[in-house]
């Protein structure tokens, strides 16, 4: 796509080529500048808010002398284990439920109930079950990411194109061949959409889990910063979480695009 644009319009100015990046960066710089100026003018109470300079200072402090790295590692481990488990089980269960009609009808009430309930409501129960160690957090991440992946996979397997099905049948395809050559490849984009949604919901699960029942992790860092009126630490935690979210979503989107090259709308 970018190739076409370059060859189509060779004499674009530097600004025209990078308009999105330039305007986007400009807005960030201006907002941070205003924020810092208001802070320096004493318009913001340090009790309720922080400043860019204080956040950078606090970030460096927690990174070098504090527990930021350990917290990030702790949260990252929770998220990684829970999320990978959710992908594996979600895809397998989704394919089976999507393919076998009876299994779907059997699981449907249960699935609907779970899908409609915010999984966050189960956090206290999960902490009762698993304690406040790592496994309660892993399970919360797992539960948060599992359902979007499952539901999207089921939808993908069920969205078999009728024309393709007819063609496969005309060529004497067996059920197993239809499953292998139509149902599975056809559901890949759906699975990747599920994974992208699972990333977002899994992160929420991770943060909430650590806020409610943990003495470590980035979620705990935010909660603790709030309880001790340490807004600088609170902001550092929020920014770390925000950047992880942006990075993971971006990765998931790239993965999604990579596997949907054959899709006409891209």
């Amino acid at each position, binding site marked *: 796509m970018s190739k076409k644009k370059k060859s189509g319009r060779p004499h674009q100015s530097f600004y025209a080529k990078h308009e999105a990046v330039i305007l986007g960066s400009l807005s960030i710089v201006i907002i941070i500048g205003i924020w810092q100026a208001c802070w320096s003018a004493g318009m913001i109470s340090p009790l309720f808010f922080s400043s860019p300079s204080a956040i950078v200072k606090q970030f460096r402090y927690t990174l070098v002398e504090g527990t930021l790295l350990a917290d990030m590692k702790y949260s990252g481990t929770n998220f990684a284990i829970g999320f990978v488990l959710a992908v594996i089980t979600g895809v397998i269960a989704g394919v089976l439920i999507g393919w076998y009609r009876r299994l779907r009808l059997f699981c449907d009430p249960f699935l609907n109930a779970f899908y409609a309930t915010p999984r966050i409501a189960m956090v206290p129960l999960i902490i009762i079950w698993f304690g406040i160690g790592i496994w309660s957090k892993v399970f919360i991440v797992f539960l948060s990411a599992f359902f979007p992946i499952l539901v999207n996979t089921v939808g993908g397997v069920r969205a078999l*194109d009728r*024309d*393709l099905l*007819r*063609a*496969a*049948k*005309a*060529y*004497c*395809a067996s059920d197993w*061949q239809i499953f292998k*050559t*139509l149902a599975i*490849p*056809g559901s*890949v984009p759906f699975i990747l959409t599920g994974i992208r949604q699972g990333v977002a919901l899994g992160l929420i699960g991770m943060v909430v889990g650590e806020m409610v029942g943990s003495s470590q992790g980035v979620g705990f860092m935010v909660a603790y910063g709030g309880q001790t009126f340490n807004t600088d630490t609170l902001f550092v935690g929020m920014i770390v979480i925000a950047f992880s979210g942006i990075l993971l979503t971006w990765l998931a989107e790239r993965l999604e695009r990579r596997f949907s*090259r*054959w*899709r*006409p709308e891209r």
Partner: protein
Amino acid sequence: MVKLSIEHLSKRYWFEREDREVLAVNDVSLAVEDGEFLAIVGPSGCGKTTLLNIVAGLLPYEEGTVSIDGKRVDGPGVDRAVVFQHSSLLPWRTIAGNVRYGMEMQRRFDEATMRERADHFVKMVGLNGFEKHFPNELSGGMQQRVNLARALAADPKVLLMDEPFAALDAQTREFMQSELLKIWSQDRKTVLFITHQINEAVYLADRVAVMSARPGRLKGVFKIPFGRPRTLSLKRDPQFLEIEDSIWQLIEEESQKLNMVLAEK
């Protein structure tokens, strides 16, 4: 020698919405010779696609017999291949992968033969160089060539074509018709070709069977006297137009009758 034989075939549907039975195909008998190109023409709703689906083995039937080489048709088989109206290509497979698909499903050839045949038929339909492209990168006409190559590569005894050019624009359709004749002339498979376009049927076929709507009955069979190869200029030949006209009259007569019946109701 008769390749495909249809004897007293009838097909009834239960029409859910109106809670009544509809006779889609009514006592059709038709014999297609080995190596013959037979076209069935008729207005939409005359049961011609139902007929093709039965021959393809995609629809069960209870009354009458359909047989290929004397063997009763009971479901899809490797002796038939279908070229569909909508190209029905797997969007995630490349052109080469799509041409292989029918062979893969039928499991008649080993890997080397499949590769060789896929290669051969991609070339035959004039798509060499596009093997690694995806269907969405191809025009409608090119997609239908892939559809045709997939069917031919499966090496059927009878080729079934279900309005394969109906969705193409007029110019592409004419071009594809002459391409089809060129490809067909290379190994002269038995073809059953369904269309609603009279001049397409007359141009392509050795014989044209005309069906009428509701119930789908065979009205008549026209033998097309032109030799081969045929060129597109044949469509302006006075004799061609005459045949086209008499088929048109037969269909017209039928639809007028139908209108009268409807008016009486």
